[in-house]
Protein backbone atom coordinates (compact mmCIF):
# COMPACT_ATOMS: atom_id res chain seq x y z
CA UNK A 1 0.00 0.00 0.00
CA UNK A 2 2.85 2.33 0.86
CA UNK A 3 4.37 1.58 -2.54
CA UNK A 4 1.18 2.60 -4.31
CA UNK A 5 0.70 5.79 -2.35
CA UNK A 6 4.30 6.90 -2.65
CA UNK A 7 5.26 5.95 -6.17
CA UNK A 8 4.79 7.23 -9.71
CA UNK A 9 3.45 4.78 -12.28
CA UNK A 10 5.09 5.70 -15.56
CA UNK A 11 4.39 4.39 -19.04
CA UNK A 12 7.83 3.48 -20.35
CA UNK A 13 6.92 4.77 -23.81
CA UNK A 14 6.39 8.24 -22.31
CA UNK A 15 9.94 8.46 -21.02
CA UNK A 16 11.43 9.48 -24.35
CA UNK A 17 10.56 12.90 -25.78
CA UNK A 18 8.47 13.11 -28.91
CA UNK A 19 9.98 14.38 -32.14
CA UNK A 20 7.05 16.78 -32.42
CA UNK A 21 6.58 19.84 -30.25
CA UNK A 22 3.43 20.03 -28.16
CA UNK A 23 2.63 23.47 -26.83
CA UNK A 24 1.78 23.88 -23.17
CA UNK A 25 -1.82 24.82 -22.54
CA UNK A 26 -1.08 27.13 -19.65
CA UNK A 27 -2.12 30.67 -20.42
CA UNK A 28 -0.24 33.11 -18.28
CA UNK A 29 -0.33 36.84 -17.94
CA UNK A 30 0.86 37.11 -21.53
CA UNK A 31 1.91 40.72 -21.17
CA UNK A 32 5.09 39.70 -19.37
CA UNK A 33 5.57 36.07 -20.32
CA UNK A 34 8.04 34.43 -22.64
CA UNK A 35 7.89 30.89 -23.93
CA UNK A 36 10.63 28.60 -22.62
CA UNK A 37 11.89 25.72 -24.71
CA UNK A 38 14.71 23.24 -24.36
CA UNK A 39 17.60 24.22 -26.58
CA UNK A 40 17.90 20.77 -28.12
CA UNK A 41 14.21 19.85 -28.44
CA UNK A 42 11.77 20.09 -31.37
CA UNK A 43 10.12 23.21 -29.88
CA UNK A 44 13.36 25.12 -30.42
CA UNK A 45 14.33 26.73 -33.72
CA UNK A 46 17.91 25.88 -32.82
CA UNK A 47 17.03 22.18 -32.99
CA UNK A 48 15.67 22.46 -36.52
CA UNK A 49 18.64 24.53 -37.59
CA UNK A 50 21.41 22.32 -36.26
CA UNK A 51 20.12 18.80 -35.61
CA UNK A 52 23.48 17.29 -36.47
CA UNK A 53 25.25 18.92 -33.55
CA UNK A 54 22.91 17.97 -30.72
CA UNK A 55 25.09 16.65 -27.90
CA UNK A 56 24.61 13.16 -26.51
CA UNK A 57 23.34 12.76 -22.96
CA UNK A 58 26.81 11.70 -21.86
CA UNK A 59 28.18 14.95 -23.33
CA UNK A 60 25.46 17.01 -21.66
CA UNK A 61 26.34 15.44 -18.31
CA UNK A 62 30.04 16.12 -18.83
CA UNK A 63 29.20 19.74 -19.55
CA UNK A 64 27.13 19.74 -16.39
CA UNK A 65 30.20 18.58 -14.45
CA UNK A 66 32.09 21.55 -15.91
CA UNK A 67 29.35 23.94 -14.84
CA UNK A 68 29.32 22.59 -11.29
CA UNK A 69 33.12 22.79 -11.10
CA UNK A 70 32.84 26.36 -12.26
CA UNK A 71 30.29 27.19 -9.55
CA UNK A 72 32.40 25.55 -6.85
CA UNK A 73 35.48 27.35 -8.14
CA UNK A 74 33.67 30.70 -8.17
CA UNK A 75 32.63 30.20 -4.57
CA UNK A 76 36.12 29.18 -3.54
CA UNK A 77 38.00 32.26 -4.66
CA UNK A 78 37.61 35.96 -4.35
CA UNK A 79 36.16 37.90 -7.26
CA UNK A 80 37.51 40.76 -9.29
CA UNK A 81 41.06 39.55 -9.51
CA UNK A 82 41.47 39.28 -13.26
CA UNK A 83 41.74 42.24 -15.57
CA UNK A 84 40.34 41.65 -19.04
CA UNK A 85 41.48 43.22 -22.27
CA UNK A 86 39.58 42.79 -25.46
CA UNK A 87 42.52 41.02 -27.07
CA UNK A 88 43.09 38.59 -24.22
CA UNK A 89 40.22 36.30 -24.99
CA UNK A 90 41.61 35.35 -28.39
CA UNK A 91 44.37 33.52 -26.56
CA UNK A 92 42.10 31.52 -24.29
CA UNK A 93 41.56 28.03 -25.66
CA UNK A 94 37.96 26.86 -25.66
CA UNK A 95 37.56 23.20 -24.90
CA UNK A 96 34.97 21.01 -26.51
CA UNK A 97 32.35 21.76 -23.94
CA UNK A 98 30.86 24.80 -22.43
CA UNK A 99 29.29 25.47 -19.10
CA UNK A 100 26.45 27.37 -20.66
CA UNK A 101 26.28 24.80 -23.42
CA UNK A 102 24.86 22.15 -21.11
CA UNK A 103 21.21 21.14 -20.96
CA UNK A 104 19.79 24.62 -20.97
CA UNK A 105 16.58 26.38 -21.79
CA UNK A 106 16.11 29.32 -24.13
CA UNK A 107 13.71 32.23 -24.61
CA UNK A 108 13.38 34.77 -27.41
CA UNK A 109 13.59 38.51 -26.73
CA UNK A 110 13.92 41.59 -28.91
CA UNK A 111 16.88 43.98 -28.92
CA UNK A 112 17.40 47.35 -30.60
CA UNK A 113 15.43 49.69 -32.84
CA UNK A 114 14.09 48.31 -35.07
CA UNK A 115 13.74 45.25 -32.86
CA UNK A 116 15.74 42.14 -33.71
CA UNK A 117 14.66 38.85 -32.17
CA UNK A 118 17.35 36.87 -30.38
CA UNK A 119 17.15 33.42 -28.82
CA UNK A 120 19.05 33.51 -25.54
CA UNK A 121 19.88 30.90 -22.90
CA UNK A 122 18.28 31.89 -19.62
CA UNK A 123 20.45 31.41 -16.60
CA UNK A 124 19.77 32.12 -12.93
CA UNK A 125 23.40 31.26 -12.16
CA UNK A 126 24.95 34.30 -13.87
CA UNK A 127 24.26 38.01 -14.19
CA UNK A 128 25.30 39.65 -17.42
CA UNK A 129 23.04 39.51 -20.45
CA UNK A 130 25.06 39.36 -23.64
CA UNK A 131 24.64 38.60 -27.30
CA UNK A 132 27.05 38.21 -30.19
CA UNK A 133 27.52 41.48 -32.07
CA UNK A 134 28.86 42.66 -35.38
CA UNK A 135 31.66 43.23 -36.12
CA UNK A 136 33.22 40.09 -34.76
CA UNK A 137 36.78 41.11 -33.88
CA UNK A 138 37.87 37.75 -32.52
CA UNK A 139 36.14 34.42 -32.76
CA UNK A 140 32.39 34.15 -33.01
CA UNK A 141 30.43 30.92 -33.07
CA UNK A 142 27.58 30.00 -35.41
CA UNK A 143 24.17 31.10 -34.22
CA UNK A 144 20.64 30.62 -35.55
CA UNK A 145 19.47 34.26 -35.48
CA UNK A 146 21.19 36.98 -37.52
CA UNK A 147 24.01 38.47 -35.43
CA UNK A 148 22.98 41.74 -33.80
CA UNK A 149 24.38 44.80 -35.59
CA UNK A 150 24.57 47.82 -33.24
CA UNK A 151 25.28 50.14 -36.16
CA UNK A 152 21.79 49.43 -37.52
CA UNK A 153 20.03 50.31 -34.28
CA UNK A 154 19.04 53.88 -33.45
CA UNK A 155 18.92 53.22 -29.70
CA UNK A 156 22.34 51.64 -29.14
CA UNK A 157 25.14 53.38 -27.26
CA UNK A 158 28.43 52.34 -25.68
CA UNK A 159 29.17 52.68 -21.97
CA UNK A 160 32.20 54.82 -21.20
CA UNK A 161 35.08 53.05 -19.49
CA UNK A 162 35.40 55.83 -16.91
CA UNK A 163 31.89 55.35 -15.59
CA UNK A 164 30.67 53.73 -12.39
CA UNK A 165 28.44 51.54 -14.56
CA UNK A 166 31.53 50.13 -16.22
CA UNK A 167 33.20 49.50 -12.87
CA UNK A 168 30.16 47.58 -11.66
CA UNK A 169 31.10 44.82 -14.11
CA UNK A 170 33.68 43.53 -11.64
CA UNK A 171 31.10 42.00 -9.34
CA UNK A 172 28.81 40.84 -12.13
CA UNK A 173 31.46 39.06 -14.16
CA UNK A 174 34.28 38.40 -11.71
CA UNK A 175 36.62 40.32 -14.01
CA UNK A 176 37.81 43.91 -13.90
CA UNK A 177 36.54 45.67 -17.02
CA UNK A 178 38.88 46.99 -19.67
CA UNK A 179 38.88 50.02 -21.97
CA UNK A 180 39.00 50.29 -25.75
CA UNK A 181 38.74 53.71 -27.41
CA UNK A 182 36.91 55.02 -24.33
CA UNK A 183 34.39 52.16 -24.52
CA UNK A 184 33.93 49.84 -21.57
CA UNK A 185 35.09 46.28 -22.30
CA UNK A 186 33.47 43.40 -20.42
CA UNK A 187 34.68 39.84 -20.24
CA UNK A 188 32.95 36.83 -18.81
CA UNK A 189 34.32 33.33 -18.70
CA UNK A 190 32.32 30.28 -17.75
CA UNK A 191 34.86 28.10 -15.99
CA UNK A 192 35.64 25.65 -18.78
CA UNK A 193 37.15 28.37 -20.98
CA UNK A 194 34.03 29.31 -22.90
CA UNK A 195 33.72 33.06 -22.85
CA UNK A 196 32.28 36.28 -24.21
CA UNK A 197 34.26 39.50 -24.51
CA UNK A 198 33.05 42.74 -26.05
CA UNK A 199 31.70 46.21 -25.54
CA UNK A 200 29.45 46.95 -22.59
CA UNK A 201 26.56 48.94 -23.97
CA UNK A 202 22.97 50.00 -23.50
CA UNK A 203 20.08 49.29 -25.79
CA UNK A 204 16.31 48.99 -25.95
CA UNK A 205 15.21 45.55 -24.72
CA UNK A 206 11.79 44.25 -25.76
CA UNK A 207 10.63 41.36 -23.59
CA UNK A 208 7.07 41.43 -24.94
CA UNK A 209 5.11 43.97 -26.97
CA UNK A 210 4.04 45.77 -23.80
CA UNK A 211 7.21 45.33 -21.75
CA UNK A 212 9.98 47.39 -23.26
CA UNK A 213 13.03 48.74 -21.43
CA UNK A 214 15.18 51.60 -22.68
CA UNK A 215 18.87 51.73 -21.81
CA UNK A 216 19.16 48.08 -20.83
CA UNK A 217 22.81 47.30 -20.04
CA UNK A 218 24.18 44.31 -21.93
CA UNK A 219 27.33 42.85 -23.38
CA UNK A 220 27.80 43.32 -27.11
CA UNK A 221 30.05 40.31 -27.62
CA UNK A 222 32.68 40.64 -30.31
CA UNK A 223 34.79 37.70 -29.27
CA UNK A 224 32.85 34.67 -28.13
CA UNK A 225 33.76 31.04 -27.92
CA UNK A 226 32.10 27.89 -26.70
CA UNK A 227 29.38 25.49 -27.69
CA UNK A 228 26.37 27.69 -27.13
CA UNK A 229 24.24 25.39 -29.27
CA UNK A 230 23.26 28.09 -31.77
CA UNK A 231 21.82 30.45 -29.14
CA UNK A 232 22.62 34.12 -29.72
CA UNK A 233 23.84 34.64 -26.15
CA UNK A 234 22.57 34.54 -22.62
CA UNK A 235 20.15 36.28 -20.23
CA UNK A 236 21.61 36.64 -16.75
CA UNK A 237 18.91 36.26 -14.10
CA UNK A 238 21.20 36.30 -11.04
CA UNK A 239 21.08 38.74 -8.11
CA UNK A 240 23.78 41.21 -9.08
CA UNK A 241 22.68 44.76 -9.87
CA UNK A 242 23.48 44.26 -13.56
CA UNK A 243 21.24 41.21 -13.91
CA UNK A 244 17.96 41.49 -15.79
CA UNK A 245 15.78 41.25 -12.64
CA UNK A 246 17.78 44.09 -11.05
CA UNK A 247 17.70 46.30 -14.14
CA UNK A 248 13.94 45.87 -14.50
CA UNK A 249 13.24 46.11 -10.75
CA UNK A 250 11.24 49.33 -11.07
CA UNK A 251 8.58 47.42 -13.03
CA UNK A 252 8.81 43.85 -11.75
CA UNK A 253 10.25 44.33 -8.25
CA UNK A 254 12.78 41.53 -8.95
CA UNK A 255 9.88 39.11 -9.12
CA UNK A 256 9.90 36.43 -11.79
CA UNK A 257 8.89 32.83 -12.24
CA UNK A 258 9.36 30.05 -14.70
CA UNK A 259 8.24 26.55 -15.43
CA UNK A 260 10.60 24.18 -17.18
CA UNK A 261 8.69 21.74 -19.39
CA UNK A 262 8.46 18.02 -18.58
CA UNK A 263 10.33 17.11 -21.75
CA UNK A 264 12.27 18.71 -24.55
CA UNK A 265 9.22 18.31 -26.81
CA UNK A 266 6.97 20.58 -24.77
CA UNK A 267 7.10 24.21 -23.69
CA UNK A 268 7.23 26.17 -20.47
CA UNK A 269 7.34 29.87 -19.64
CA UNK A 270 9.43 32.61 -18.09
CA UNK A 271 7.27 35.32 -16.61
CA UNK A 272 8.20 38.64 -15.03
CA UNK A 273 6.20 40.32 -12.29
CA UNK A 274 3.45 39.01 -10.07
CA UNK A 275 1.04 37.92 -12.80
CA UNK A 276 0.26 34.25 -13.30
CA UNK A 277 1.80 32.95 -10.10
CA UNK A 278 -0.01 29.91 -8.73
CA UNK A 279 -2.03 30.51 -5.59
CA UNK A 280 -0.65 27.21 -4.28
CA UNK A 281 2.95 28.39 -4.27
CA UNK A 282 4.91 27.62 -1.09
CA UNK A 283 7.80 29.90 -0.17
CA UNK A 284 11.12 29.25 1.48
CA UNK A 285 13.64 31.92 2.44
CA UNK A 286 16.38 32.90 0.00
CA UNK A 287 19.81 32.89 1.59
CA UNK A 288 23.02 34.58 0.54
CA UNK A 289 26.20 32.65 -0.12
CA UNK A 290 28.91 35.01 1.10
CA UNK A 291 31.48 34.08 -1.57
CA UNK A 292 28.96 34.30 -4.40
CA UNK A 293 26.25 36.82 -3.62
CA UNK A 294 24.69 36.65 -7.07
CA UNK A 295 23.61 33.04 -6.55
CA UNK A 296 20.17 32.26 -5.14
CA UNK A 297 20.96 30.45 -1.90
CA UNK A 298 18.41 28.04 -0.42
CA UNK A 299 18.35 25.79 2.62
CA UNK A 300 17.63 22.15 1.87
CA UNK A 301 16.84 20.44 5.17
CA UNK A 302 15.76 16.94 4.18
CA UNK A 303 14.77 14.43 1.52
CA UNK A 304 12.16 11.70 1.41
CA UNK A 305 12.11 8.67 -0.87
CA UNK A 306 8.99 6.57 -1.30
CA UNK A 307 7.32 8.54 1.49
CA UNK A 308 10.10 7.82 3.98
CA UNK A 309 12.26 10.65 5.28
CA UNK A 310 15.94 9.78 4.96
CA UNK A 311 17.77 9.62 8.30
CA UNK A 312 20.09 12.54 7.63
CA UNK A 313 20.53 15.65 9.69
CA UNK A 314 19.62 19.08 8.29
CA UNK A 315 23.08 20.24 9.35
CA UNK A 316 24.57 17.99 6.68
CA UNK A 317 22.98 20.24 4.03
CA UNK A 318 23.76 23.51 5.74
CA UNK A 319 27.50 22.73 6.08
CA UNK A 320 28.14 23.72 2.48
CA UNK A 321 24.85 25.47 1.77
CA UNK A 322 22.82 25.08 -1.43
CA UNK A 323 21.79 27.15 -4.43
CA UNK A 324 19.11 26.85 -7.09
CA UNK A 325 20.37 27.10 -10.65
CA UNK A 326 18.43 26.92 -13.92
CA UNK A 327 21.59 26.02 -15.82
CA UNK A 328 22.74 22.99 -13.82
CA UNK A 329 21.07 19.83 -15.11
CA UNK A 330 21.51 17.39 -12.23
CA UNK A 331 20.92 18.22 -8.56
CA UNK A 332 24.11 17.81 -6.53
CA UNK A 333 23.85 16.68 -2.92
CA UNK A 334 26.37 16.24 -0.13
CA UNK A 335 27.77 12.72 -0.72
CA UNK A 336 26.39 11.38 2.55
CA UNK A 337 22.90 12.55 1.53
CA UNK A 338 23.27 11.19 -1.98
CA UNK A 339 24.37 7.78 -0.67
CA UNK A 340 21.31 7.62 1.60
CA UNK A 341 19.03 8.70 -1.29
CA UNK A 342 20.40 6.27 -3.86
CA UNK A 343 20.49 3.43 -1.36
CA UNK A 344 16.79 3.81 -0.50
CA UNK A 345 15.90 4.32 -4.16
CA UNK A 346 17.74 1.11 -5.13
CA UNK A 347 15.95 -0.80 -2.40
CA UNK A 348 12.57 0.30 -3.75
CA UNK A 349 13.58 -0.36 -7.37
CA UNK A 350 15.02 -3.82 -6.72
CA UNK A 351 12.49 -5.50 -9.04
CA UNK A 352 14.05 -3.82 -12.10
CA UNK A 353 17.26 -4.96 -13.81
CA UNK A 354 20.18 -2.58 -13.35
CA UNK A 355 22.00 -0.89 -16.22
CA UNK A 356 25.46 0.60 -16.70
CA UNK A 357 26.16 4.00 -15.08
CA UNK A 358 25.76 7.05 -17.30
CA UNK A 359 28.56 9.52 -16.63
CA UNK A 360 27.94 10.93 -13.13
CA UNK A 361 24.71 8.95 -12.71
CA UNK A 362 25.44 5.65 -11.00
CA UNK A 363 21.95 4.27 -10.35
CA UNK A 364 20.53 3.15 -13.68
CA UNK A 365 17.92 0.65 -14.86
CA UNK A 366 16.97 -1.25 -17.98
CA UNK A 367 13.23 -0.88 -18.66
CA UNK A 368 13.15 -2.61 -22.05
CA UNK A 369 11.04 -5.51 -20.78
CA UNK A 370 8.41 -3.31 -19.13
CA UNK A 371 5.50 -1.32 -20.51
CA UNK A 372 5.06 0.59 -17.25
CA UNK A 373 7.23 1.04 -14.19
CA UNK A 374 6.67 2.15 -10.63
CA UNK A 375 9.18 4.71 -9.39
CA UNK A 376 9.34 5.93 -5.77
CA UNK A 377 8.32 9.52 -5.19
CA UNK A 378 11.05 11.86 -4.03
CA UNK A 379 10.45 15.09 -2.11
CA UNK A 380 12.95 17.77 -1.19
CA UNK A 381 12.29 19.67 2.02
CA UNK A 382 13.30 23.31 2.30
CA UNK A 383 13.55 25.54 5.35
CA UNK A 384 10.17 26.78 6.53
CA UNK A 385 8.40 23.44 6.24
CA UNK A 386 8.26 23.53 2.44
CA UNK A 387 7.98 20.09 0.85
CA UNK A 388 8.55 20.05 -2.90
CA UNK A 389 7.53 16.80 -4.58
CA UNK A 390 9.73 16.19 -7.60
CA UNK A 391 7.83 15.34 -10.80
CA UNK A 392 8.37 11.85 -12.22
CA UNK A 393 10.27 13.41 -15.13
CA UNK A 394 12.55 15.09 -12.60
CA UNK A 395 13.47 11.86 -10.83
CA UNK A 396 14.76 10.03 -13.89
CA UNK A 397 17.30 10.97 -16.54
CA UNK A 398 16.64 8.93 -19.67
CA UNK A 399 19.42 8.11 -22.08
CA UNK A 400 17.62 5.18 -23.73
CA UNK A 401 14.90 2.88 -22.40
CA UNK A 402 17.67 0.43 -21.56
CA UNK A 403 19.52 3.09 -19.51
CA UNK A 404 17.25 5.15 -17.29
CA UNK A 405 19.02 6.69 -14.31
CA UNK A 406 18.27 8.32 -10.99
CA UNK A 407 18.80 12.00 -11.83
CA UNK A 408 20.76 13.00 -8.74
CA UNK A 409 24.48 13.03 -8.03
CA UNK A 410 26.79 13.62 -5.09
CA UNK A 411 29.35 16.34 -4.58
CA UNK A 412 32.89 15.23 -3.81
CA UNK A 413 32.77 16.27 -0.20
CA UNK A 414 30.06 17.00 2.37
CA UNK A 415 31.52 20.49 2.83
CA UNK A 416 31.45 21.38 -0.91
Amino acid sequence: RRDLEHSHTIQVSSLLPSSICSLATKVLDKKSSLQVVHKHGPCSQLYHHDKANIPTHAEILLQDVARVKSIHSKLAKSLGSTKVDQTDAANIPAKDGSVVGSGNYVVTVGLGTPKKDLTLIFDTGSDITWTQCQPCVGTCYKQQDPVFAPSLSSTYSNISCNSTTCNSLASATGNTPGCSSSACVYGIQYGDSSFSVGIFAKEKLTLTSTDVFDDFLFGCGQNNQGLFGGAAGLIGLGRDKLSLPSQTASKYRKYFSYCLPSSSSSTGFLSFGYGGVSKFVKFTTLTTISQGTSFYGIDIVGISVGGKKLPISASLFTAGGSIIDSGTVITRLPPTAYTALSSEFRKLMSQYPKAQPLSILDTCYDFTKFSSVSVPMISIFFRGGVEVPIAAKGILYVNTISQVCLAFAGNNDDTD
Partner: protein
Amino acid sequence: VGIFGNTQQKTLQVVYDGVGGKLGFATGGCS
Protein backbone atom coordinates in the same frame (compact mmCIF):
# COMPACT_ATOMS: atom_id res chain seq x y z
CA VAL B 1 27.42 23.87 -2.19
CA GLY B 2 24.59 21.59 -3.07
CA ILE B 3 22.77 22.59 -6.25
CA PHE B 4 19.07 22.17 -7.03
CA GLY B 5 19.29 21.54 -10.74
CA ASN B 6 16.91 21.99 -13.63
CA THR B 7 15.90 18.34 -14.08
CA GLN B 8 14.36 18.40 -10.62
CA GLN B 9 12.68 21.75 -11.35
CA LYS B 10 10.73 20.35 -14.32
CA THR B 11 6.99 21.13 -14.27
CA LEU B 12 7.29 23.12 -11.03
CA GLN B 13 6.49 26.80 -11.12
CA VAL B 14 9.59 28.29 -9.51
CA VAL B 15 8.98 31.80 -8.18
CA TYR B 16 11.79 34.23 -7.36
CA ASP B 17 10.92 37.12 -5.09
CA GLY B 18 14.16 39.10 -5.00
CA VAL B 19 12.82 41.98 -2.94
CA GLY B 20 10.95 39.77 -0.48
CA GLY B 21 13.92 37.39 -0.24
CA LYS B 22 11.79 34.35 -0.94
CA LEU B 23 11.79 31.44 -3.36
CA GLY B 24 8.52 29.63 -4.08
CA PHE B 25 7.50 26.34 -5.63
CA ALA B 26 4.14 25.22 -6.98
CA THR B 27 3.52 21.81 -8.50
CA GLY B 28 1.93 21.44 -11.92
CA GLY B 29 3.30 24.78 -13.00
CA CYS B 30 3.38 24.30 -16.78
CA SER B 31 -0.07 22.93 -17.50
